[in-house]
């Protein structure tokens, strides 16, 4: 389409200038609003046209190629999903032991009972959706507490780098990590697996297969340090075991996060199916929320709109002291967001949230 021609542009701008539009003609604006173009930008002929740039894969009419390998040829040669994950994320064919180890991890992370991914999949299913919507939602359930592989892995990398730079022993770096992150959800050590040997069996398997490396070694020191720092018994948990094993297999924290979230989503699909098979759908307005679960303001009459100015409390604060008083007061309003602090960062740099907590 391109820009509108000058004659029509001038006519439109003239009409608008004469009519005026709210504050748009204000001299405080760093531009003359009534002197602007209409229509879309012409095609950029000075730069190369847009293409989907990828290091991961390409396809043409006759083949699909990932990291140089034709995917049909990979299958014909006897490779499968596990190997393609190494190809997609690491551009290499894994050893047989690495393949066996990732297979082991994926079986262990496939199902986790009615935890968040399965629960959210079932909730979505009740709205009568496609299965794929529910599977997508289950992947969304992976954050920086549940399935916190990005936060966990980036932290291991940070302290391992620190150990190298500052010439610290693994033991000292682990002690520092624990001291600074003892109560973090992504520590990888907790009381969750005290009676379940699965996490430690996974580490033993990695050692038996010869895939254990610096991350497992470091994680063992983290476990020791956490056990020393805790009054209550704690041990390696599934996050710590799977995270360390995956990183020793060469996967980045983000790749680990994605692979294991997707792995869990297969079972979330089964939960979707079972929910549809065994339960009813939910309609808009059907679900009740019992009053006994409500602890907000008591029922009160809605004031007449004519009284609005008399009863309304403006939020405007004109001094930092006023601002602080209101801020503190608002913490009593649950659901307002004033009690939470987050540093939302670009996740491509690290894990995406530096810290999430309560003020």
């Amino acid at each position: 389409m391109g820009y509108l021609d000058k004659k029509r542009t001038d006519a439109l701008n003239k009409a608008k200038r004469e009519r005026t539009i709210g504050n748009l003609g204000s001299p405080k604006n760093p531009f003359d609003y009534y002197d602007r173009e209409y229509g879309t930008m012409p095609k950029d002929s000075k730069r190369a046209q847009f293409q989907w740039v990828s290091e991961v894969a390409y396809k043409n009419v006759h083949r699909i190629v990932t990291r140089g390998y034709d995917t049909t040829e990979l299958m014909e040669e006897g490779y499968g999903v596990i190997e393609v994950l190494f190809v997609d994320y690491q551009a290499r064919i894994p050893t047989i032991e690495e393949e066996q180890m990732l297979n082991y991890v994926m079986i262990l992370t496939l199902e986790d009972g009615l935890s968040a991914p399965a629960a959210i999949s079932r909730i979505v299913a009740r709205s009568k959706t496609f299965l794929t919507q529910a599977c997508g939602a289950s992947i969304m359930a992976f954050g920086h507490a549940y399935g916190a592989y990005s936060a966990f892995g980036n932290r291991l990398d940070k302290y391992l780098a620190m150990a190298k730079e500052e010439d610290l022993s693994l033991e000292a770096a682990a002690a520092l990590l624990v001291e600074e992150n003892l109560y973090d959800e992504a520590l990888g050590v907790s009381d969750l697996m005290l009676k379940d040997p699965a996490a430690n069996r996974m580490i033993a398997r990695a050692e038996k297969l010869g895939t254990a490396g610096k991350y497992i070694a470091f994680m063992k020191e983290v476990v020791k340090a956490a056990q020393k720092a805790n009054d209550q018994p704690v041990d390696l948990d599934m996050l710590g075991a799977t995270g360390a094993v995956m990183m020793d297999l060469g996967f980045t924290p983000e790749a680990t996060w994605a692979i294991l979230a997707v792995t869990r989503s297969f079972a979330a699909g089964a939960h979707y199916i079972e929910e549809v098979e065994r339960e009813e759908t939910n309609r808009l307005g059907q679900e009740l929320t019992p009053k006994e679960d409500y602890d907000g303001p008591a029922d009160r009459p809605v004031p007449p709109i004519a009284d609005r100015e008399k009863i309304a409390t403006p939020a405007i604060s004109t001094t930092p002291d006023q601002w602080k008083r209101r801020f503190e007061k608002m913490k009593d309003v649950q659901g307002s967001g004033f009690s939470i602090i987050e540093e939302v960062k670009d996740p491509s740099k690290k894990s995406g949230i530096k810290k999430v907590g309560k003020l």
Partner: protein
Amino acid sequence: MDRKQMFRRKTSISYKTEEKTVMRGYNLSDLAEEGYSFYDAMFVLFQNRIPTQEEEKMLKYEMGVFLEHSMSPSAVGAIGVSAGRPNLPVCVAAAVSTFGGVHGPGAAHGYMLNKYLERAQKEGKTVDEMAKILVDDYMDAGRPVMGMGQPQHIDSDPRAEPIHLKQEELELKGVYLEFQRAVEKYFHARRKADGRSYVGVNVVGSGNTALMEIGFSPNAGWCIGSVVRGFSCAAHALYNMKKGRAWGASRNEPMVQMIDLSMIKYVGPEDRIVPKQEERQEYAKKQKEEGEYKQWVI
């Protein structure tokens, strides 16, 4: 740590205690220790059984060949979402959610096969006879026959026929493969008779046939196919997050970016003046009466 149940359901899929996680009766840790594969676990999850080696091999092939598909709606979805730099799982969720009625409609293909197989059984017709009825039903109604054709792989999906061949090689030839092959035969014959170009079987047509043959329901097959694609879409999103430009609109890049302003082609109503509030009622009534707006309603 508080471990109370967040969500309560009667379920036959799994349970989890402080001691173990059990799926369909099998301790997951024991399943892995015994040397079973992730593909075996899919059979346990969806079918409550350990598969034969041939069935396991078939699933391995099907999932592996479907995992990566470069630029299709799922990868584009993941990359598009990644432009805003949300957490990575959001990009993957978007990718998996792109699978619907057209992109990878495995469940729809499966339901189609089941519907006509049931008709064959009820009406006492052979699989071959019913395949012709299916093709005629769809083509007479001007509806696309599911499992046939792919907009990018225009003269045959590179994954499709090899899946059929693998199924035959593994001697997993059952009613689904016979039916699908017959559908393809009548589909090709009818297009040829109509003077239309050759359209090959696609990966849903062959892959989903294999999945159904080895015992998966239409929805389980759809889950396997669409979720496995999530693995590669995450890689595409991650590549863009780590090595691409956020937002996808920078004018400093040597190549025009995905959502550069020049990529927009607008074909809607032409620029017009916003009515003042005092003009609004009369303006709005006139607009409704004239009805020109109706051509733009979506």
